[in-house]
């Protein structure tokens, strides 16, 4: 069952504004009350999403209440029930990203119940504590909260899983491993997925750490051979998001319906694309019968966005808190989403505008050339530009088909190594200028905020300034301008020794980072999430588990329950089960 049609209540609390409950005076919806609602959950209004709407459900509305308050839209409805249904509607029409619903006179005449409501898939992707989803199909009245549609856990004993262990000292680690091994060698394979994720249980992990990724048959041997690491130095995590060129048919599909946060996040991103999102998903999951090939801009860009975003969300769900973000080309928009510059809904709209305008540009493409920028400058012609400077000897050129083909011929004739990048549009070349002008009009309507976390830009080659982040022109120019990925990576690695994690398909950016001095010398490090080459779905999961193991041995503490879902969660039977079960609301969901 898909979460995308639901709205989730992520916070709920009861406010009692009157001084003495015994007075029993009904509370009146006033401007003061709206101010209180905006602050009800302890956050200042500036921290709320740009598209937050306040919905007042009250029979009595004060005269001073306006349609806008402190920059947020305010709507009124006669009852709390109508307000909650309206919230669901606004969220799914895309007019709001967060609805704060104030049920006046709920549960008592003198109290207000405040609900924070989000689209359910985004709530799961964002790691919110979901109290329940609104059952808007119920008859009139306050829609009841239903539990999040849960799917049976699929504990396939032959899937790879993670085994983590640690010790306070080197000797302690040896002792812990010694206790772990007999458990694994004498284990019935059916019991393998249910073993604890990390041992020893119940104590904080120690600084000497090791990890194994294995199927049950190889578990004991893999644990025995694992190398323990003393994590005296734990480097902060920086997420890298790849762009066009990294896509491949069926990319990351091994995680879809096998990891709940990834699944919810992909669905949330695609849901913002409407009907087209459904077609994108169908072509992704059935590459053999795809209506449009993956390298086409109409598939590569939306899917790369959704998958990069979902991988980033999955990493965050493990409890990892990245300290900076850097995306390559289209990946910069994903990075901006994580840094708080744009909402998911608006970022998807920006991707869609790019695609809409890119297809109007005469067909073109991109080349990767093993040479420096200086070496390539003399080969540039009208309409062929430097698209990206990725690494010392890795530069991309872009242009319309014919002039680009001529440049490729000249480069090859001179003995340079040239590879065609899978792309149908001449991104980051002068040919894209009309598309930049067109999308700027769209981007002017989008609320852009300054980054809340360090966001490195491939366009400026440095930290993104608040001015750039808020400039529609800056974002519109990205599809025409050169990507200075090498400079941005340089700046990032000069600022701190970090563990770079590539949240995207293939290992394009990982390879660039491995050629960087900081990583070669071991000051920084890089870890890909997915395999370098397209492989099996199990290979996708195995690769993600290896990344989780890497984070653990780097000294990062992981949410063990979240990580365990990689081998205990499955949504395969969901469609068959959907609609047949209406389980009662568990007591937990009723606790506000």
């Amino acid at each position: 069952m898909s979460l995308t049609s639901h709205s989730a209540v992520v916070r709920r609390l009861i406010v009692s504004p009157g001084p003495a409950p015994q007075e029993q005076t009904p509370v009146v919806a006033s401007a003061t009350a709206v101010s209180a609602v905006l602050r009800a959950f302890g956050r200042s209004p500036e921290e709320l999403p740009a598209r937050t709407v306040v919905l007042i459900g009250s029979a009595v509305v004060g005269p001073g209440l306006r349609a806008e308050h402190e920059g947020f839209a305010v709507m009124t409805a006669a009852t709390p029930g109508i307000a909650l249904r309206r919230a669901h509607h606004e969220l799914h029409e895309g007019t709001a990203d967060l609805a704060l619903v104030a049920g006046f006179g709920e549960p008592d005449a003198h109290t207000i119940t405040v609900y924070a409501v989000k689209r359910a898939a985004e709530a799961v992707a964002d790691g919110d504590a979901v109290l329940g989803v609104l059952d808007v199909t119920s008859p009139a009245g306050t829609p009841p909260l239903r539990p999040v549609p849960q799917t049976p856990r699929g504990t396939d004993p032959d899937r790879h899983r993670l085994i983590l262990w640690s010790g306070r000292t080197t000797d302690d680690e040896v002792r812990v491993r010694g206790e772990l091994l007999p458990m694994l060698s004498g284990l019935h394979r059916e019991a393998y997925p249910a073993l604890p994720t990390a041992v020893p249980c119940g104590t904080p992990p120690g600084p000497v750490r090791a990890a194994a990724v294995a199927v049950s048959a190889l578990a004991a041997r893999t644990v025995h051979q694992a190398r323990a690491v003393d994590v005296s130095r734990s480097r902060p995590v920086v997420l890298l998001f790849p762009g066009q060129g990294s896509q491949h048919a069926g990319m990351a599909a091994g995680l879809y319906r096998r990891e709940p946060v990834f699944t919810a996040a992909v669905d949330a991103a695609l849901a913002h694309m409407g009907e087209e999102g459904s077609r994108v998903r169908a072509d992704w999951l059935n590459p053999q019968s795809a209506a449009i090939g993956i390298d086409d801009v109409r598939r590569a860009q939306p899917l790369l966005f959704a998958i990069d975003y979902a991988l980033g969300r999955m990493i965050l769900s493990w409890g990892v808190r990245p300290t900076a973000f850097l995306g390559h080309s289209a990946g910069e928009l994903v990075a901006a989403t994580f840094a708080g510059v744009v909402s998911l809904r608006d970022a998807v709209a920006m991707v869609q505008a790019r695609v809409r305008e890119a297809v109007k540009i005469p067909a073109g493409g991109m080349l990767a050339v093993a040479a420096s920028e200086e070496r390539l400058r003399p080969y540039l012609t009208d309409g062929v530009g430097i698209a990206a400077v990725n690494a010392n000897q890795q530069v991309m050129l872009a242009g319309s088909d014919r002039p680009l083909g001529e440049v490729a011929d000249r480069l090859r004739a001179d003995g340079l190594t040239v590879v065609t990048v899978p792309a149908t549009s001449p991104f980051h070349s002068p040919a894209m200028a009309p598309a930049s002008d067109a999308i700027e009009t769209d981007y002017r309507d989008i609320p852009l905020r300054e980054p809340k976390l360090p966001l490195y830009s491939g366009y400026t080659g440095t930290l993104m300034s608040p001015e750039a982040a808020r400039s529609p022109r800056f974002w519109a120019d990205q599809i025409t301008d050169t990507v200075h990925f090498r400079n941005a990576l340089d700046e990032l690695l000069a600022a701190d020794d970090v563990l770079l994690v590539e949240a995207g398909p293939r290992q394009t950016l990982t390879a660039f980072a491995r050629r960087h001095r900081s990583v070669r010398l071991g000051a920084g490090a890089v870890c890909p999430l997915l395999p370098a080459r397209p492989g099996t779905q199990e290979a996708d999961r195995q690769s993600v588990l290896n990344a989780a193991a890497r984070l653990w041995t780097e000294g990062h503490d992981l949410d063990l329950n979240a990580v365990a879902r990689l081998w205990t969660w499955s949504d395969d039977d969901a469609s068959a089960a959907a609609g047949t079960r209406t389980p009662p609301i568990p007591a937990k969901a009723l606790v506000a």
Partner: protein
Amino acid sequence: MTTSTATVTLADLTRMLRESAGEEEGIDLDGDVIDTPFIELGYDSLALLQVIGEIQREFGISIPDDAVVDAETPGALLALINSGRTPAA
């Protein structure tokens, strides 16, 4: 098909890997890299194609285009280059 009897050694390959990366610092290829995937050494398919091009020019041999896909490690690439010819010794 190969057209020369010269055998490409691991030392030749690591030297050319280093040269092609254009790195002043030199990539760490001193350890046991023969079975380390190229991608883990920082060589993507473009960088590897370039190295293969250099080898072809320097040794006057022809290496099939598929080598970049088939050979994931220096060991596998050397085996592919040096196969199908009379052993040097």
